[in-house]
């Protein structure tokens, strides 16, 4: 059951809430659900829900994200992404974090995979390295590195930019004719209105990289997202 990790995270959040932890969540609708540049909703709108818990004093955090994904050959599944980590202060304006995330697909458990990650976080940027030993169940190990930038803009807007680079490591069970690596990017703006946030971004990825079971037809898309936090 894909919803199980979500409920586990919710119970975990509820359990540690009395010890001075922040518990929050969000509901969002995206015109196209994209992960590392590729569409996991077949280019169609999709909803997602998340719950998160933060312990400000220790820097511990965890949470879960629940969404629907569409793979090739009309295979759909509910996906739950469970994550936890800890962030440490290195110096004012610079933090580091270590964590892990596990993605579970209810109807297609052979695509389940986990990653560990480490990152550096500045005030207007962050960068992370993710390592997996079986990316999307492809049988191939992977490394993904990303850089995210954020810049306040006039009229309450926030400019956002992301570049990422995914590379398959070792022998692939299904070798990709376009090579082992796949860069992706996103550039966009966001505007917060109280607990609501709207995002508009141009998202895309090249071909190549580990096999990920989704349509390769639309490599780029303009994505509109609306989210509400609670």
């Amino acid at each position, binding site marked *: 059951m894909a919803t199980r990790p979500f409920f586990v995270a919710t119970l975990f959040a509820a359990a540690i809430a009395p010890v*001075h932890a*922040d*518990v*929050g*969540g*969000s509901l*969002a609708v*995206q015109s196209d*659900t*994209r*992960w*590392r540049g590729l569409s996991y909703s077949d280019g169609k709108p999709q909803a*997602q829900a*998340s719950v*998160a818990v*933060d*312990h*400000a*004093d220790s*820097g511990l*955090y965890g*949470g879960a*994200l629940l*969404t629907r994904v569409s793979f090739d050959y009309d295979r759909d599944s509910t996906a739950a*992404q469970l*994550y936890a*980590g800890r*962030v440490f202060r290195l110096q*004012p*304006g610079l*933090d580091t*974090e270590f*964590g892990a*995330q596990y993605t579970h697909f209810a109807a297609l458990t052979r695509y389940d995979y986990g990653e560990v*990650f480490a*990152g550096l*976080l500045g*005030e207007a940027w*962050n960068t*992370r390295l993710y390592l997996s030993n079986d990316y999307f169940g492809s049988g191939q190990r992977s490394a993904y590195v990303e850089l*995210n930038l*954020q810049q*306040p803009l006039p009229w309450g807007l*926030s400019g*956002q930019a*992301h570049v990422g680079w995914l590379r398959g490591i070792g022998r692939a069970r299904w070798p990709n004719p376009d090579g082992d690596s796949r860069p992706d990017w*996103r550039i*966009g703006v*966001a505007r*917060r209105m109280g*607990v609501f*946030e709207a*995002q508009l*971004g141009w*998202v895309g990825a090249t071909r190549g990289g580990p096999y990920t079971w989704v349509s390769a037809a639309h490599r780029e898309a303009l*994505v509109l*997202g609306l*989210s509400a*936090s*609670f």
Partner: protein
Amino acid sequence: MRRWLLALALSLLSLAVSASNTDEPRSADRQLLVMLQLPKAHFRPEASYGGSYGDTQGLALRKRQAEALARSHRLEFQSEWPMPLAEVDCFVMRLAAEDPRSLEQVAVEIEADKTVAWAQPVNEFRAHGTADEPLYATQPAAGQWHLAALHELATGRGVKVAVIDSGVAAEHPDLTGQLSLNENFVEDRAFAPEQHGTAVAGIIAARNDNGQGIAGVAPGARLLGLRACWQQGNGETLCNSLSLARALQAAVTNGAQVINMSLGGPRDRLLGVLIDQAMARGASVVAALGRSAADSFPASHPGVLAVGAGPPLPAGAVQAPGRDVPSTAANGGWTLVTGSSFSSAHAAGLLALLRELDGSKLRPLQAGLVMGQQGRIDSCATLTRHAAITPKGCLEEALRHTGD
């Protein structure tokens, strides 16, 4: 006599339009700031999917917590201001006029709640200086500080200097093109060019290439005009904890290397945390000395360069020109100003010159200041120490001292 004739002539030439707000300050009206801890930013999968950074999560919860605190402590919830630099969400609450409790008493009560990082009253701050009648006169810095000689060594080129003050007249002919930012952080008050902020900005970075008015100490610096204070009908310039905190946060976000605060008030925990964060990121904070302990903050804060116009000076404070200083006026003309506010502006300008020459090596920047007698900054010695050459004007000054 000549001085008065000049004053009269410039009074007639100058447009005597004073841009001021006459409303009484609303924000210092029995207000309390309640801080709830803000978690550090970290990985969130929804950020990767949606292009959001996901940092709105928990915001609604903290707001609900703050509203519940306001209800249980009989306060009126007013507004919220995230202060990520201080790692808190700041909520503004108001104590009813008829409530017999003091703000300090309520702050102690509310801090007993485990969810509260701390609570404090909204303090009021005042600018340390006054503007006299419009007058174009000789700049003290030109003689005492050998400004022309200093500009042979450095003009503060590209150094970002934040002016946390009242509104700066960006269209003033001596300030045109000198501001890279001019933002308003005073709640419920529209931006207006005001006297104090405009005079401070002029002393720091008035243009020296336009053939009119004055020359700033650091004409090559880029000013960040951060309006956190407002001018009252009586000419007094006031600020409060919240507007100053928001402006400090913007100064750091925009990469200010020198932050000038020509104002003073009671010790303030939120501002202290933000000043520490600014200094930890390499910014130098300069503040005007107050007249009493009640208005000695932020000059008294550890690490802040405290500047006065004359003796007596407390230990560690320095002296810079601050009497009868001509500077830019909010109405587009020029005016004569006096007070430690303007001494602070001189010191901020000098730090910008120092930053250009030796910035990356000096931490804090003020460690590079060379002091003369009675706590006076020796500007020539300060700059020549960090430059390869000694300009003629400074050489003459050095020889004069040798002769003495």
